[in-house]
């Protein structure tokens, strides 16, 4: 398989952190270790050739019963090259935590709050990590696969 320039560069620079990569359905995807996330993101943003200046989307997927359980999914876009790349980071453990990208993109602020709200993944270095769509008294994280869809909770307002 021929690798795109982005994948080649990431593999060249972070060969130890790269777990896997593929270009399924024409979308470059790289799976990296949690510890290298901030560095890879900074590299993608600041590399003069790549210039991934957009953090287009940030979300998580709960692969229940798999270890590590969660996977953070970042979609970057380079306006200059009109090219997209997807970076995935497996996160696990009882208290899942990854580095926050708020220092690089202010856009990460609300996205990460949403992921925290829906999945309970914490972000190291996030300035204002609180629930965004649900109310503060809500218990549990609704997009986790072990949160039953029929579960009801009392709607309580701020005290």
């Amino acid at each position, binding site marked *: 398989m021929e690798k795109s320039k982005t994948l080649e560069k990431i593999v060249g620079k972070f060969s130890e952190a790269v777990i896997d990569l593929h270009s*399924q359905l024409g979308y470059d995807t790289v799976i990296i270790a949690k510890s290298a996330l901030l560095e890879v993101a900074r590299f993608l943003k600041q590399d003069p050739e790549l210039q991934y200046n957009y953090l287009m989307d940030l979300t998580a997927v709960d692969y229940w019963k798999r270890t590590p359980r969660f996977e953070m999914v970042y979609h970057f876009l380079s306006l200059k090259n009109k090219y997209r790349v997807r970076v995935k980071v497996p996160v696990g453990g009882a208290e899942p935590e990854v580095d926050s990208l708020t220092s690089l993109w202010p*856009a990460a602020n609300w996205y990460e709050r949403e992921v925290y709200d829906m999945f309970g993944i914490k972000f190291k270095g996030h300035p204002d990590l609180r629930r965004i769509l649900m109310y503060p008294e809500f218990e549990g994280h609704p997009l986790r696969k072990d949160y039953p869809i029929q579960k009801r909770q009392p709607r309580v307002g701020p005290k």
Partner: protein
Amino acid sequence: MFLNIGPAHPAMHGVIQIHAELDGEIVRKADIEIGYLHRAFEKHCETGTYSQCFPYTDRLNYASPLINNFGFAAAVEKLMGLEIPERCNYIRIIMSEISRITDHLTCIGASAMELGAFSVFLYAIKAREWLYELIESVTGARLTVSYARIGGVKADLPEGFEERCQATLQKTREVLKEVDQLLTRNRIFYDRMCGVGIISADDAVDYGITGPFLRSTGIEYDVRKAFPYFLYERFAFDIPIGEHGDNYDRYLVRMEEMYQSIRIIEQALDTIPQGPTNVDSEGNVIDPDLMADLGKFGKTSGLLKNEVLIQPTLQGSEKRYHDRVRAKSKEAWLPPKEQVYSNIEALMNHFKIVMLGHGIRPPKGEAYVAVEGANGELGFYIVSDGTDRPWRVRCHPPCFPIMAALGKILVGDQVADIVPTFGSVNMIAGELDR
């Protein structure tokens, strides 16, 4: 002073709350509270089949539901590698652009109304009504359309659509001209909009903002041009960009985008292909599934010739239109309706596609597909585990990053400026809170 604005305030079209810290009339800090319309869209999508997600997507951006429909369908099609027919692509483009006009009309009309220009709102809504009638004649509904299907659309365009569409566009153009005359050089409107709610290009990129809001700052990014989907690369249209990134530029960008949408629709209507018409109810051309039927059960060929009248709501999904609007793929192929009504094989085929536990099964994998929604890039990220239900559906709503930046945009402006700035965001709570 600390002031709570919203969630139920007449000038807030949409339920959000702004905690504003004021110094006299000047906003010093604004904290935006969202989530009042959270309906667990993503969670619900995981519990139903792929086709059952469409009604939920109608309710994301309810000012332009067709674009959401097509975006979700495009993501699943990407996952399955489906090729959709050319005519279907054209239909999707036409309907998307009509939706874009209705969305922008709503936004401009509502913002103008909030600044006191109530007649503009009435004019805009009048034009939107004509377009809604057009949408209704195609989809059967005005708002909860659910018109897209995986691998196509529900039905072909109705008879006489092209003429009616041309006439409506002509009338819409006149309304746009009226709106333009009423607003663009209106002293009050200009003073309230110009130089208010400014965002720099760098900030807009850092916040991940797309759509008219980004283009008003002078950055030319439009998914239709940058990553052409459906068949947008065939059409000539311009991307209007602003300069200052203020409310007035956003208004101008939206106005011009509507003209460009009309341009796209007119080109599409002129060149829309009629598509393969190799199938008629007489069965002159035999397609693969019919051939299999004939081989196994010779008697069914007689049944096929029975004239079956289908319900008015299903018009356009008969066999003679079927090949134009549906992908020829066994995995996602819903048989034509008169066959479902008249022979058992087609009925079984239909049930195999729609029944829980059977259904459409994209292969394992993931896909992110973006379309240009009315507010910006509308992305769908779908993870499939190979079953008939999506493992994860993520919708990237275009107004989410704008709302994230709103707290910063409002700072330094006056309290009264919150209203036009918030209006120009065109926040749609349905897609913001999902």
